[in-house]
């Protein structure tokens, strides 16, 4: 490392890598994340890629991005505006410029900044000379040329695929990272391809040395490391969900069965679990979503922990069978990784618009438990809790995550599975002479789980209304009313087994209460906590449990002058609150753009409300 340079310490930094789908920006992003974790930083990341597998090169639609937020303090989101943007071509620049903070650094591959590329990107003028970039620090690096010349021996197509390592090299220098870690990452990724390792390392070094000699980089940075203690790893929401489900299986002694059909952005959960046969996980890639959930219900009937994973359109298709799980009172977890709707909608964009479908999207009176996860790492805990509730209360649980959580990652404090709570499903005992399929635990109202293969418990269940206790098919009028109420009450009683709703901020109440749920947590929490640091009277109630509500919900809401409900949809949770706690007045802040909240947007809105009298 050159010591003629000044090294500045940073609390945190936001870097966005952007280029064509083929430019390897996701790879570089992941490489930088890994290295940052090893360097002891806290971090959160978010990839942002086109919905086409490979959209046309050089166009806006084809830009693939990866944002990473690294720092020493608690990092809760992948960040609002980037401090550093890497733009491999004009389209990447054009698409992302509005997401770079004033005064930020922009590294461009100058080799791609020509009229041909401008046209593809939709630039009418040369953005380098028309004032577009005023106020930014522009670093024009001949990335393509330099890459090619560092790996002359390779054919030029292959050579171009290593361009991203030139970028990595530059950033390793800029942020005073150890180059060895980058190399290690490459050796790991291309385990069986020593030639690729070599070429990539050559380019990585070339980038590093180029930056070292570059005057623009006279200042380099060191990001302070996080103060957290424990064991950590970088984890995405989908992987965390998969592992949380496995934790529930392990702690219940019930093998995990996943019946699923691929759909963006939920597919990785299926992919992750399909490689976990070593831990006894069975996955079944079904012919469609209906078969996915139906097989999970069948597996639950047979004594497995049945799970199905999907996104909005798939949840629609699962509606009828979800009702069957309600009627048969079997454990089932349905994970819905929400994306933009309606219909096929915006398949790769996050949204929180499946809430009402999760609550109400089934025929008849059909109550299920609805929960949400707050951060990528929290997906693990939420999935575990969903499994615990499903199995202990014999009930379907819908867990809502979203595309932002699913693909985003954060530094995650690895829990010790041994010290997690056990899960104790109400399994019926062999030859219990008093066994009746719809006999209920008087506290939880859960029926027992009588597993095929068990002696003396042969019985039949199904989707027709059941007689109380005996479980025989019944069309009796009063029985139906009793059973409808039991099913609802069973869900409501789960409130006795979940924590009270916490308030972050003024627990005794105050002026403004922000209410949120699900994947907006990071942004909302950060906004509220920054305003609190400024002395504002603002607090946060972030809901993990949606149905049933935590027992103290009414009390929490009653303690504040103003309630503002923030959601990435057109106001679903707020209407649900209105229906159940109509005595309060709710303000709402909604964004329906297939994008997460920016912290600054939230702060602006909250300040507005704080100032209103």
């Amino acid at each position, binding site marked *: 490392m050159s010591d003629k340079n000044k090294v500045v310490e940073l609390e945190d930094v936001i870097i966005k890598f952007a280029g064509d789908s083929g430019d390897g920006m996701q790879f570089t992003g992941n490489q930088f994340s890994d290295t940052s974790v090893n360097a002891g930083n806290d971090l959160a990341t978010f990839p942002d890629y086109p919905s086409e597998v490979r959209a046309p090169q050089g166009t806006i639609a084809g830009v693939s991005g990866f944002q990473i937020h690294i720092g020493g303090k608690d990092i809760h989101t992948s960040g609002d505006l980037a401090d550093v943007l890497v733009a491999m071509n004009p389209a990447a620049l054009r698409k992302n410029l509005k997401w770079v903070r004033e005064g930020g650094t922009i590294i461009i591959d100058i080799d791609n900044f020509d009229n041909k590329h401008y046209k593809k990107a939709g630039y009418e003028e040369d953005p380098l000379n028309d004032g577009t970039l005023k106020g930014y620090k522009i670093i024009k690096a001949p990335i393509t040329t330099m890459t090619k010349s560092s790996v002359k021996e390779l054919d030029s197509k292959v050579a171009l695929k290593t361009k991203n390592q030139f970028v990595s090299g530059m950033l390793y220098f800029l942020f005073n990272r150890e180059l060895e870690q980058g190399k290690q990452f490459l050796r790991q990724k291309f385990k069986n391809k020593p030639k690729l390792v070599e070429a990539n390392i050559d380019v990585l070094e070339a980038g590093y040395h180029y930056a070292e000699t570059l005057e623009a980089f006279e200042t380099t940075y060191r990001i302070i490391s996080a103060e957290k203690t424990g064991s950590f790893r970088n984890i995405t929401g989908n992987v965390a969900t998969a592992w949380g489900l496995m934790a529930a299986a392990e702690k219940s002694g019930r093998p995990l069965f996943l019946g699923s059909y691929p759909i963006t952005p939920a597919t990785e959960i299926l992919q992750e679990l399909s490689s976990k046969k070593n831990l006894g996980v069975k996955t079944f890639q079904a012919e469609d979503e*209906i078969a996915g959930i*139906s097989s999970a219900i069948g597996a639950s009937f*047979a004594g497995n922990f049945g799970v199905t994973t999907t996104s909005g359109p798939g949840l629609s298709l699962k509606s009828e069978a979800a009702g069957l799980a309600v009627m048969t009172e079997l454990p089932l977890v349905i994970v819905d990784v929400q994306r933009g709707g309606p219909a096929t909608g915006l398949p790769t964009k996050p949204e929180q618009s499946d809430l009402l479908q999760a609550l109400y999207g089934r025929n008849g009176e059909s109550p299920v438990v609805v929960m949400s996860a707050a951060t990528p790492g929290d997906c693990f805990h939420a999935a575990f809790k969903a499994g615990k509730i499903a199995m202990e209360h014999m009930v379907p649980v819908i867990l809502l995550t979203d595309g932002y959580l699913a693909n985003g990652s954060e530094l995650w404090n690895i829990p010790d*599975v041994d010290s997690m709570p056990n899960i104790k499903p109400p399994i019926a005992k062999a030859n219990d002479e008093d066994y009746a399929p719809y006999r209920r635990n008087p506290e939880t109202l859960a029926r027992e789980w009588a597993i*095929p293969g068990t*002696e003396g418990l042969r019985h039949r269940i199904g989707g027709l209304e059941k007689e109380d206790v005996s479980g025989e098919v019944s069309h009796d009028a009063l029985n139906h009313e009793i059973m409808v109420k039991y099913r609802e009450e069973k869900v409501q009683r789960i409130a006795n087994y979940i924590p009270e709703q916490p308030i972050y901020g003024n627990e005794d109440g105050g002026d403004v209460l922000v209410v949120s749920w699900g994947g907006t947590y990071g942004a909302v929490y950060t906004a509220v906590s920054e305003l609190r640091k400024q002395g504002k009277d603002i607090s946060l109630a972030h809901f993990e449990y949606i149905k049933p509500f935590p027992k103290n919900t009414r009390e929490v809401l009653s303690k504040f002058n103003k309630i503002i409900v923030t959601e990435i949809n057109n106001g679903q949770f707020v209407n649900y609150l209105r229906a159940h706690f109509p005595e309060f007045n709710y303000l709402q802040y909604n964004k329906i753009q297939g994008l997460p909240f920016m912290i600054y947007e939230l702060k602006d809105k909250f300040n507005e409300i704080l100032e209103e009298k």
Partner: protein
Amino acid sequence: MSTTTDNTTQELTAKDFKTDGPVKWCAGCGSYSILSSVNATLPKLGVRKEDIVFVSGIGCSSRFPYYVKTYGFHGLHGRAMPIASGVKLANPELSVWVVTGDGDSMAIGGNHFIHLLRRNMDINILLLNNKIYGLTKGQYSPTTPFGSKTKTSPDGTIEHPFKPGELAMGAEGTFYARTIDTDPKMMKEVFLEAAKHKGAALTEVLQNCIIFNNKVHQEITDKDVKEDNTIYLKHGEPMIFGKENDKGLVLDGIKLKVVKIGENGITKDDILVHDAHEPDDTLHYMLARMALPEFPLALGVIRAHKTAVYDHMLEEQVELAKEHSKVKKLNDLLNSGEIVKKG
């Protein structure tokens, strides 16, 4: 089917599988005799009674699980097969039976049907084919004969019906049998063969719906024509049929032909011998598609081909993975790969 045997179960009889409550099919419904044949077959499986599971969809036929004293699941319309798949994969030791109708399996459930067959999961499917929607009172089904007038086809249907056996083979099915509600002896023989088959076993049972499609099968059940209009195929035996046992099937190029033994110099030795185990299903496909008036309807086990079974392979993959992996508990996984310890 699962081969779990248990010495204490050897004395099971049909009674062990009879439920107490009333059976709610119409008087005269063909399903009654199917039920008794099934109940008579179950004790012969050598399976503990608590290891048997019946799964169904919705329809008259799908009420079956209520009348068999095993574990049972009366699912959703069309969804018996994926529910059964989940049951079987969760616990491959169970003997899993699906009972379904022509609408349940081939209208709304058509996709699950072809996928279960191609996956060759070790599940027995009894398809009660009355060629009508019974429970909803008489609309045409995917197997209703072309031109039939039903409640939803007052001018006659304009749909070419599926032939379950043909569809099964098109879907890579490994076992197909056809039998009929009026022949308990044959039903029992065929059900037992189906149960023994390792893999997905589809048995089509021609069933009479006395209310909405009475006599749809009469050409093959009426006493006086039955023997001339059907052929009971048995593996290893020549394809001979007829009241006088004097008709047989031969090949004429790649077409089947009915011949009379003793005429035109034809002897018994010229008659085709049934090989249900042949992997190539061309002849099975032809046999399954034979139709009156030119041909007798084929009954019995038409195809029974052994090949890789989904649930066996899954178990093997799991066992292998467990054996070879160092990750034995979730904690191992959580702490493998890129980890940083701090503090």
